[in-house]
């Protein structure tokens, strides 16, 4: 496992794209969060969730993170490098695990930068928009921040699994972004509120982003940590499916 990890880390480190994507994910998360914070105003007692507003950028950051994760596999299929890699590391599950670990590490860095920056930006901007008495940190905000970093990591692992499944970077990005962006909109057309709630508990974005709420958590379709758990199940399922096909297909 260690040589595989080392090899994957070298590949990630020595190509310019991943470093730029890590930076882009962080910048996108902070920038959209700052814009959303600038756009909102709060009259006393408006009950808006300052932390959630600061973290609006997750919606954009997750797309960049998905590209980063997809390219870790997709680029190897594009260039044919995957055959060399599999010659060097014939244990295919080990290879996928190493890739997952390296991608998770990179996204952890991107997420920590982006989410941390977004929270700080929100705390700087929002008091000027009428949010009085924002605590510097509180338990719920800390949970939302840590959870949102994990959210991005899980999105990356889900993307990695999908990329291993479909083997084509463009198709994989399309599939992942469709899953992330289309499902919530499509659920809006379901008129039965019970069914809508049930399905919202199961979609990766709706369930996973429960973690970024700090106000009205009780009214969400699913709690913060169980929601993140649902996303983790999606990621695990994608990785397992990817691993199975990686075993049984020619590269």
């Amino acid at each position, binding site marked *: 496992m260690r040589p595989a990890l080392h090899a994957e880390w070298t590949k990630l480190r020595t190509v310019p794209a991943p470093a730029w994507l890590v930076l882009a994910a962080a910048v996108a998360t902070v920038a959209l969060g700052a*814009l*959303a914070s600038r*756009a*909102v105003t709060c009259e006393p007692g408006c009950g*808006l*969730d300052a932390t*959630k*507003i600061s973290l*609006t950028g997750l*919606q*954009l950051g997750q*797309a*960049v993170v*998905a*590209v980063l994760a*997809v*390219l870790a596999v*997709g680029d190897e299929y*594009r260039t044919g490098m995957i055959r060399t890699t599999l010659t060097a590391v014939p244990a295919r599950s080990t290879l996928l695990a190493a890739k997952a670990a390296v991608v998770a590490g990179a996204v952890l860095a991107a997420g920590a930068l982006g989410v941390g920056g977004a929270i700080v930006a929100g705390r700087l901007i929002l008091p000027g928009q009428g949010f009085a008495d924002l605590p510097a940190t509180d338990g719920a905000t800390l949970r939302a921040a840590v959870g949102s970093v994990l959210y991005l990591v899980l999105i990356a692992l889900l993307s990695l699994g999908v990329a291993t499944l479909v083997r*084509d*970077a*463009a*198709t*994989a*990005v*399309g599939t992942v*972004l*469709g899953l992330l*962006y*289309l499902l*919530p*909109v*499509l659920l*809006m*057309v*379901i*008129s*039965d509120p019970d069914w809508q709630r049930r399905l919202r508990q199961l979609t990766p974005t709706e369930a996973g982003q429960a973690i970024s709420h700090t106000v009205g958590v009780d009214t969400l379709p699913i709690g913060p940590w169980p929601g993140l758990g649902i996303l983790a199940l999606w990621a695990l399922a994608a990785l397992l499916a990817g691993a199975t096909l990686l075993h049984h297909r020619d590269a």
Partner: protein
Amino acid sequence: MTDGFPALLRAELTKLRTVPGWVVAGAVAAALIVGFALLTGAGAGQSRGGPPPRDADGTPVVDRFTFVHQPLPADGAVTVRVASLTAPDGPEPWAKAGLVVKAGTSPGAAYAAVMVTGAHGVRMQHDFVNDVAGPASARWLRLARAGDAVTASASTDGATWSTVGTTRLAGPAEIGLFVATPPHEKFDQFLGGTSATGRPVLATAVFDGLTATGVPTGGWKTLAVGVADDPHALVGDAAWAGDTVTVSGAGDIAPAVEDGPGLEQTLVGGFVALTVMVILGVLFVTTEYRRGMLRTSLVASPRRGRVLAAKSVVIAAVTFAGGLVATAVALLVGKGIMGDAVHPVSGPTQVRMVVGTAALLAVAAVFGVAVGTILRRGAGAVAAVVVLTTLPYILSVAAVLPVVSAQWVLRVTPAAAFAVQQTVREYPQVNAAYTPAFGFFPLPPWGGFAVLCAWTGAALAVAAVLLRRRDA
């Protein structure tokens, strides 16, 4: 080999239709458009109360006010001064007090009215959707009918009169004073929710100097029009003191803006199809880069701009044709299922929705081709087009952003093109939730579409330059 453009088109069409995955994706997109129409149509009819009153054209209306009236069999005129118009927390901007002549007292009947408003001066309004501004400071109002011509006039001193507007209202009618005020409401949306905070209000107007001709001498009767449909309605009254009458009232005489589901809900599948089509547009180019096929294409047709043009024309034509059929079927099926529940939409608007959605899909696919040519790499290009077209729509229409930012997003991003699906008109004289979450776009339908075309045109220009300058 000849370098004729028709041959090039044929070559690109062959590429497009012989990749099974793309054909399947296109077919799935078309099926989704129709499938979601079935789904929304089936759900739409359930969550509705009683039907609202409709005017002679079938437009749903709000028609609820306090009416101090007498019959007007033929010609006649009423003149009055609105001494004051008040409400507990100040009058609403569109609180109304004045004169109305109406073809009967049932809600939805044709009318013509001249009124003093809370903040919009004197207006003449007739038949619910028509609104004409009069002098801002006038307080004397006159409504006169000769034959079937109704003339509304206003005056600041009761001596010199100016005509505000004219219209026609034939047959026996009721004429008199009216007071109505919409509720005090504020609308916003944020983070997946929409909010309408407000409360019903009763406005009070004091009238004096009332004179009437052409009416029987039976005296004035007071009626709360339209309250039967709404058990929670505030009901106004009238009280006489000498020749001064104080009238209170709630409600409005206006088109109903938020009445039932909009027909555009049947086209929600178009949003899914859009995502599929921009991705297909990207893949149409990047797959050639990936396989090195592009070098073959450029050897066959060395004039590179024409390759880009041929790809754009082929994918646009195919998408438009497929989109047209799918959205037309979706609209007809959805409308059939929704039946009376849906807010009525005129024929030309329905044609605009169908043609506009098909054109939106076609231009978006070309946008995908252009971005794919610029970036050459599928993953980045797919992410870019999805983030530019799909994400703004989610942020604004699914109410993640507050109204002001959502409206900006729908002015400047390609998602502005969804304005072609807008069905309900914005009436300046009605305070309502004109927000993206309720299907109101900040740009007019084809204006929004033009934003997408501008993005696509710019991307195509950049793509053409880069394709010529770079090695393939």
